[in-house]
């Protein structure tokens, strides 16, 4: 019988033209790098927007030089207006959540490494895979377009609550065309992600090479598999919501807009819509989305830690089951974003229990990581530093979740900076640290060169200390009742808190500057870094069994055969203290799982 992996995957030979090699490429590795580039562009945009926001929050009347270039009416004399603040905030969150956190750890690294981890030649549907990147790219361009139309981007937050998002420009600048552009861009984005899941899932289920059972897959691939299943079922709910929102705007329907609303003394023409319907649809997507943002990072960080600890995790299966538990529970908890929304207060209690329960798999994962460090021979390098940083940040973010899981405590903390602290710790910094860890670890494989280790460490220290300085104080602000999404703080009781905001701003600017070290390191290493060996970290999984970077068909025509679990470290073998997955050498090890 023929070996299916070579047969059922791409029927394309090596690309020859420039367009096929670098632009409309069918090669999953190129597509992965294209996604990475998109994520990098998006994170730079999101970061610059956050600097502008933070400067305004610390010094409300400060004239930021050049700000008027960003908006025709939003910055008279370069001083940010409240509406421009909200527009920048909305765009910051939208770019970060969609175009960075869903793209980089999942689409970028996933596209590059899933076929390699499964020993396949390419994804099963390379044309759809190529379309998935370009669709996402179109979504990105459409979102950018909102800066250039009419009165600018939408100001309703990345959550776009109705009716503010649905009644049109009468509700504020950017609420007309800005919302339609936002919703269109997101709908296109959903399609792109579905094309991605369409490739990831069949690759992992059907194209594994000989000897590669599901339990022998490395942890990132399990994480990507679980995330693809989540993406499949959550993005396909966001798209209908966006369609309904667009219809409310352009077709005069009233899905989300109730009757008898009066804005600017004008009675609005809509009637009968349900305000809460948008929230239910959005958060049914929104909560799995945040797990889509973090689970790939957990897989990547586990992978990096194992390689650097020189021993496998205490239990491979428990980690996988816990990732799966997070995914399943994530659909049952979405109401915790709506405790005080006006939905039935009994529902709030009902949603709080799975929310509290979801701490259990999260705790198990963290304890397995920490417990696996026991007895390790931990190597410290840029990749492992960011991985360890991820663990610390995820602990902090998870712990603040204890508070927010309870409706009674949300009476105090809902919509305050406590929430901002919580989601930035888990998503903005833990997930970003996961991306950095994966970058430092896999850069040699992806681009064939080593990154500068010294610069990597400097980047880590500045970032790690910096992000704690930025986001830890936000917990205290939240406890003190500092409401979020405010462009400034005129309320009497918030006046004493402005000093804390100024401290945060300084920390944010400093940490942002440190990211330029990473950018320099990335670009410089890409062109002038030391050429990388095939296996610079003495890793065991299949990506280290091929060249850096891999050839166009990943393994140079070899039909890979896997003999071992993915993490055979701490053994005595001919190569040292590890056995590669595709090595026929049989070694006795205490950690072999069936």
């Amino acid at each position, binding site marked *: 019988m023929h*070996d*299916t992996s070579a047969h059922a995957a791409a029927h394309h030979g090596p690309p020859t033209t420039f367009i096929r090699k670098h632009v409309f490429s069918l090669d999953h590795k190129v597509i992965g790098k294209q996604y990475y580039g998109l994520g990098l562009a998006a994170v730079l945009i999101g970061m610059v927007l956050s600097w502008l926001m933070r400067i305004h929050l610390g010094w409300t009347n400060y004239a930021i030089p050049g700000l008027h270039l960003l908006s025709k009416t939003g910055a008279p004399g370069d001083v940010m207006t409240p509406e421009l603040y909200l527009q920048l905030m909305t765009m910051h969150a939208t770019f970060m959540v969609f175009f960075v956190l869903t793209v980089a750890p999942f689409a970028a690294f996933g596209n590059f490494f899933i076929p390699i981890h499964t020993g396949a030649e390419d994804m099963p549907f390379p044309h759809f895979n190529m379309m998935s990147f370009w669709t996402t790219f179109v979504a990105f361009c459409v979102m950018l377009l909102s800066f250039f139309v009419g009165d600018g981007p939408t100001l309703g937050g990345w959550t776009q609550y109705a009716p503010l998002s649905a009644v049109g420009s009468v509700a504020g600048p950017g609420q007309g065309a800005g919302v339609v552009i936002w919703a269109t861009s997101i709908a296109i984005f959903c399609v792109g992600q579905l094309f991605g899941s369409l490739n990831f899932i069949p690759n992992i289920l*059907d194209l594994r090479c000989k000897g590669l059972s*599901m*339990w022998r897959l490395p942890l990132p691939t399990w994480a990507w598999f679980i995330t693809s299943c989540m993406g499949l079922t959550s993005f396909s709910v966001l798209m209908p919501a966006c*369609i309904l929102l667009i219809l409310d705007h352009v077709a005069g*329907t009233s899905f989300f807009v*109730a009757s008898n609303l009066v804005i600017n003394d004008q009675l609005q023409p809509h009637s*009968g819509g349900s305000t809460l319907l948008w929230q239910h649809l959005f958060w049914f997507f929104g909560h799995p989305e945040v797990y889509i943002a973090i689970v790939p990072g957990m897989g990547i960080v586990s992978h990096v830690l194992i390689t650097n600890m020189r021993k496998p995790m205490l239990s491979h299966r428990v980690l996988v089951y816990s990732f799966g538990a997070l995914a399943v529970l994530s659909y049952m908890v979405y109401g915790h974003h709506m405790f005080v929304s006006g939905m039935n207060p009994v529902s709030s209690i009902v949603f709080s229990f799975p929310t509290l329960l979801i701490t259990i798999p999260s705790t198990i994962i963290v304890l397995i990581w920490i417990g696996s460090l026991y007895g390790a021979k931990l190597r410290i390098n840029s990749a492992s530093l960011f991985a360890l940083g991820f663990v610390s940040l995820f602990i902090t973010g998870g712990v603040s979740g204890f508070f927010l899981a309870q409706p009674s405590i949300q009476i105090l903390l809902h919509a305050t900076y406590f929430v901002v602290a919580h989601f930035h710790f888990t998503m903005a910094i833990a997930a970003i640290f996961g991306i950095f860890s994966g970058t430092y670890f896999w850069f040699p494989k992806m681009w064939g060169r080593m990154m500068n280790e010294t610069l990597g460490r400097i980047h880590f220290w500045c970032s790690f200390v910096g992000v704690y300085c930025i986001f830890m104080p936000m917990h205290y602000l939240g406890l003190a009742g500092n409401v979020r999404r405010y462009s400034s703080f005129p309320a009497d009781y918030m006046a004493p808190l402005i000093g804390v905001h100024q401290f945060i701003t300084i920390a944010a600017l400093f940490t942002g500057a440190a990211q330029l070290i990473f950018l320099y390191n990335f670009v410089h290493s890409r062109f002038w870094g030391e050429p990388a060996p095939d296996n610079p970290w003495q890793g065991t999984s299949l990506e280290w069994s091929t060249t850096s970077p891999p050839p166009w068909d990943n393994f140079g025509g070899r039909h890979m*055969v896997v003999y071992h679990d993915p993490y055979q470290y701490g053994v005595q073998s001919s190569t040292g203290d590890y056995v590669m997955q595709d090595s026929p050498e049989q070694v006795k090890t205490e950690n072999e799982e069936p």
Partner: protein
Amino acid sequence: MATTVVPPKVKPRRAPEPGHPGNGGFRNLVPTDGKLPAVQDYAPVPSKTGIWVVIAAIAMSFAAFTSALVVRQGASTDWHHLVLPPILFWNTLVLLASGVTLEIARRRIAVFMGGPRTFDLNPARWLYVTAFLGVVFVAGQYAAWLQLRSAGLYLATNPNSSFFYLLTAIHALHVLGGLVGLTYVTRKLHRNVLRRSTLDSFSYYWHFMGILWVYLLLLLWMKI
């Protein structure tokens, strides 16, 4: 009389080759005796998994629309039942018929692919009939919209009409997408490179469109 305990009959999922110890693990990729070279190649075809991914995504999105409908109905008192245009029931028959013709096509193609591949057997004929019926279905849906318009019911007239147009239009769009897929399948057949899995995957999608339509029809009938 001694009773004999008969051992339970265990039907193996796949009979191993003679001398082969059998496979284990998910998808049977690992030999139970550890000797890797003896593993049987088990080759699930990605397009069959892929089409289930697509069907799952589409099902979820229609679930979202359904819950939007239910919530919207409960949100206000402006729900005014509309009478479904009778042409919908004819369209349903057309779509279900296209499922039957697709099954006929599959059997003809199997015969064709299994024997001498002479085109006087005309294996594509029933695919053309299926495509024709698909087009008739979409045209019939369009006719239903025209009937609604002549009754003064447009997209934004009331929430019932909004959901009627929305659900039928999005379903029709997916049927059109299915017709694109059917074109792809027919072209492959003509070039004699149609794989069984491709045809199977397409038919799952097409039958799903039929089942989905029946569900939507019931939903519209009961709720709108």
